[in-house]
C-alpha cells in the first residue's frame, strides 16, 4: 500500500483525488484497467459519449470543515469514484455482462478502501466508504433506461486534521 501524499502545490482535495487515481491504477484488481480508464475529472458527465469502455472517473464531490479541538479543524473530503460503462445501442442481452463488469469494478474499488485499517495513513484517514447510487441502490437505473449506461458511484470520505 502506497503512503498518503504530503501537501504539495495543489489544493488538498485535488491531491487526494490524484492519489485515489494513482492508487486505483496501481491496485491489483481482478478487473484489469489501463491508465486511460482511470482519470480525474471536475464534471463527471452523466452520459458518456464513448461506448464500450469501462471507466473509473474520480472527482472531488464534497469538502466540509468543523472544529475538532482548540487548535485544529477537521476537514472531511468526499472523493467520488464513478464507475461507468456505456454499451453500444445494439448490445441487447450482452449489456448484462457489461453491466456485471461495472458492478464488479465498483465492488473492488469499495473493498480496496474498506478493508484497510483506518489510521494507517498519518495525514488522512478513511472515514467512510459508500457504494452505489445513494440509499440501497447499487447503480443508477435511470442511466440504463436513458443512456444504455451502467453508472455506480463509490464515495470515499477522508478526514484530515489541520491546524496552524
Amino acid at each position: 500500500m502506497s503512503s498518503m501524499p504530503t501537501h504539495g502545490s495543489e489544493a488538498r482535495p485535488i491531491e487526494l483525488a490524484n492519489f485515489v487515481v494513482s492508487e486505483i491504477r496501481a491496485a491489483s484488481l481482478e478487473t484489469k484497467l489501463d491508465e486511460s480508464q482511470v482519470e480525474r475529472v471536475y464534471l463527471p458527465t452523466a452520459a458518456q459519449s464513448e461506448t464500450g469502455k469501462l471507466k473509473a472517473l474520480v472527482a472531488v464531490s464534497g469538502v466540509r470543515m468543523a472544529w475538532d479541538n482548540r487548535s485544529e479543524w477537521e476537514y472531511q473530503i468526499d472523493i467520488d469514484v464513478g464507475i461507468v460503462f456505456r454499451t453500444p445501442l445494439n448490445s441487447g442481452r450482452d449489456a448484462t455482462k457489461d453491466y456485471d463488469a461495472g458492478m464488479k469494478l465498483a465492488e473492488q474499488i469499495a473493498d480496496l478502501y474498506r478493508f484497510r485499517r483506518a489510521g494507517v495513513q498519518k495525514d488522512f484517514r478513511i472515514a467512510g466508504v459508500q457504494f452505489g447510487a445513494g440509499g440501497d441502490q447499487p447503480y443508477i437505473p435511470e442511466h440504463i433506461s436513458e443512456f444504455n449506461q451502467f453508472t455506480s458511484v463509490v464515495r470515499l470520505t477522508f478526514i484530515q486534521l489541520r491546524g496552524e
Partner: protein
Amino acid sequence: MAGPNSGAECILAYNSGTFGSPTWTTLTRAVDVDWDAPVTWGNISSRFSLWAMEVKALQGLTVNFGYRRRAGVSDTVFTAIRGYAFGARTKAELAIADGVIATTGTQYIRATYQFEMSRTEPLEDGCQDNFSAHLTYEEDTGTGREPSWTVV
C-alpha cells in the same frame, strides 16, 4: 476581540512554572472544557418562618476536559498532564481562561488540582483522552491556596 466567543477561542493552560511566578502552557489540543463549582447547602429553617431557608456551606471545583492526542507524535503537553493523572498524585495548577491569558480583559480561574483520566476509542470517531481535575489543597510558606478569579 471583545464579545461573546466560542470554546475554540478560550484557553485552558497548566502552570509549568511556580506558584509565585507562573508559566502558563496552553493545552492547544483540548476539546471540550467544562468547569463546575457546585455548592452544598445547609438547612437553616426554623419555626420563625414558613419559608425554607438555606445557607451556603462548602463549594467545590472540578474541571473536565478532553484532549486530542496524536498517535506516533511526541506531545510534551500531553506527557505533562498524563503524568499528573496516571498513577501519580501530582498537584498542578490550571487556568481556565476566556481568552489569551496575557490580554487585558481576559478572565480566568486559577486553582490547584489533582487529576484522573480515561480514554475513549470509538470505532467511527476520533480517539480522545478525558481528564477530570479536582480541587485540592496545597500551601506556600504555610498559607493554603484557594481558587482565584482573575481579571487581567
